[in-house]
């Protein structure tokens, strides 16, 4: 069951329009993250900041396949991409990152706590492993209310060492709940390489041990990712049981702002390694595939870049022009009515 690397789908499986959409979404995420990084260094954004560069396919290959807002998405602090893929506007995300009243969490959440429940996005989470126990309840509720919907729950390789994750996988296995686990297996938890944090590196065996089926997926290729996601989602909707995708991927930049300089990353990985993975950049691959199929022209590439740039810049203008949250909102939202 472990270690099945799924083959990319054939041309028939995906239309030109869909492929262009995947490209567009991944590009929007990449450009958004790059701009966020600049804004952080201009001190417009504070706190911690975790970019998704390199992992775009994990979001683009899955979230558009969902029936939002009825399906639900949970993820980690590395959550900008997930919000955007769920349909939260770049404006609302950027405003949240800048701590503005117009942000998707009214400026109260920040980078690690983007959220958009009306779109099915139940939010990022600053605690490693934190969303997985929550996913048990979301999956339970989807089943309890008699829907055919799925909760998609993202988490990192480092999170596999959190006890709460194991309690939860076991409960999901036992109760047979409709949850799709996406292990964003980028090989590092901060500065800790996979092999230095796990007693046994085949995560599918860990999922299986709790009664959850799963497989390894190449997450650098969005088409492969998309196909695996579709099969997993179909499996869950048919059987009502969870599925676990251990997705091979890589973050091109530092863990966060603390090691975004190369010196920081040199403590735990080499330039050569980063370069090697950059050759599998999901954006390069989709561009190549689009071109090979004759689905895209240079003009279109430029046009998409331009429209993406516009969107990101608009989000910055919007956020910077937005007010800070009113001071008297400090004590609001501690409780719901």
């Amino acid at each position, binding site marked *: 069951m472990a270690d099945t690397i799924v083959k990319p789908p054939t041309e028939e499986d995906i239309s030109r329009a869909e492929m262009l959409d995947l490209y567009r979404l991944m590009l929007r995420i990449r450009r958004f993250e790059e701009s966020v990084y600049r804004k952080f260094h201009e001190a417009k954004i504070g706190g911690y900041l975790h970019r998704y560069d390199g992992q775009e396919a994990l979001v683009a290959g899955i979230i558009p396949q969902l029936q939002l807002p009825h399906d*639900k998405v949970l993820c980690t602090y590395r959550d900008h991409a997930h919000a955007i893929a769920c349909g939260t506007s770049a404006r609302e995300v950027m405003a949240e990152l800048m701590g503005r009243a117009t*942000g*998707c*969490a*009214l*400026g*109260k*959440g920040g980078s690690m*706590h983007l*959220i*958009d*429940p*009306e779109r099915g996005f*139940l*939010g990022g*989470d*600053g*605690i490693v492993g*934190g969303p*997985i*126990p*929550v*996913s*048990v*309840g*979301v*999956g*339970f*509720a*989807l089943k*309890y*209310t008699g829907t055919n919907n799925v909760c998609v729950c993202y988490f990192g390789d480092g999170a596999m060492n959190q*006890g*709460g994750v194991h*309690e*939860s996988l*076991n*409960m999901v296995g*036992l*109760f047979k709940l409709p949850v799709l686990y996406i292990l964003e297996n980028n090989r590092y938890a901060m500065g800790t390489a996979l092999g230095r944090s796990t007693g046994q590196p085949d995560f599918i065996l860990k999922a299986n041990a709790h009664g959850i089926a799963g497989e390894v997926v190449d997450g650098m290729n969005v088409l492969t990712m998309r196909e695996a996601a579709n099969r997993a989602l179909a499996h869950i909707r048919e059987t009502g049981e969870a599925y676990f995708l251990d997705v091979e991927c890589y973050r091109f930049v530092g863990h966060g702002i603390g090691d975004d300089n190369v010196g920081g990353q040199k403590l735990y990985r080499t330039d050569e390694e980063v370069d090697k993975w950059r050759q599998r950049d999901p954006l390069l691959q989709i561009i190549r595939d689009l071109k090979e199929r004759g689905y895209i022209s240079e003009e279109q590439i430029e046009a998409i870049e331009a429209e993406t740039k516009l969107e990101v810049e608009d989000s910055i203008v919007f956020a910077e022009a937005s007010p800070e949250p009113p001071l008297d909102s400090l004590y*609001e*939202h*501690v*409780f*719901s*009515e």
Partner: protein
Amino acid sequence: MAKMRYLQALRLAMTEEMERDPNVFIMGEEVGQYQGTYRVTEGLLNKFGDKRVVDTPISEIGIAGMATGAAMVGLRPVAEFMTWSFAMSAMDQLVNHAAKITYMSGGRIKCPVVFRGPAGVGTQLSAQHSHSLEAWFAHTPGFKVAMPATPEDAKGLLKTAIRDNNPVIFMEHAGLYGSSGEVSEDPDFTVPFGVAAVRREGKDISLIAYSRGVAMSLKAAEILEKDGISAEVIDLRTLVPLDMDTVVASIRKTHRAVVIQEEWRNAGFAAELATRIYEQAFDEMDAPIQRVAGADVPMPYAKNLERAAIPTEHDIVAAARRALS
């Protein structure tokens, strides 16, 4: 009205709310087939079936997360901790998730979940099974904290907790499960949060307590009465929200107070209570507020040591006398 025990009142509250609202469900360790470790949930599995009465593995993190997640998308879970001592394993899910999600989301997510179970000292359960930890939860914004002292409140507060749109820490007292009293059978009967009860009127001193401390205070008041001391007994019912109006009104009358808690003294809730009284009524105080609390030791097993570690009505009487001397 019917006479029933505290644990029956809790069960009745859950039964009525489950009948009223199909989104209410029960979950926890041994709540179903085993009929509840303390029999609080006895009969509910038979009545409502295993969709709505869910036995879980011994996984407190998973339980807390499952309840939180289900509440985030519209259900109203009532999750039992077999005892509150075991909730320690789940503090991250409780505090970082259940208590904060509403605030972190700018109010976009509601989290109507009740965490309930027995707290406090049992009989020789020793160091790891004798906590209530209300101070920890009261310290954490985002939780409401209810600690019923009577069967009627057990029912009325639990119904309010289940209907509340926020995470409620509902601490029962194992030592009260068997106590009985008159309880309303009206399914519309509830006890609001944030309204303390004056359990006994008095004019010389205010005894301010909650949970099992209320019964102790009433006994103390009777002893004091024999000496001609008239003690007022206030039952806080909920620590968050806290009804300081009732407390301060009592203080304005008596000008002296004893604050009572069973849990460890240091940085316990009684300190908060005393501090708030001074903050709001310093000039009214004719004597220092006396604090009655558990000893600052892990609960010892031996019967005599356990008895020495927890407060009794005699400690309250002694404290009252100090305040009046």
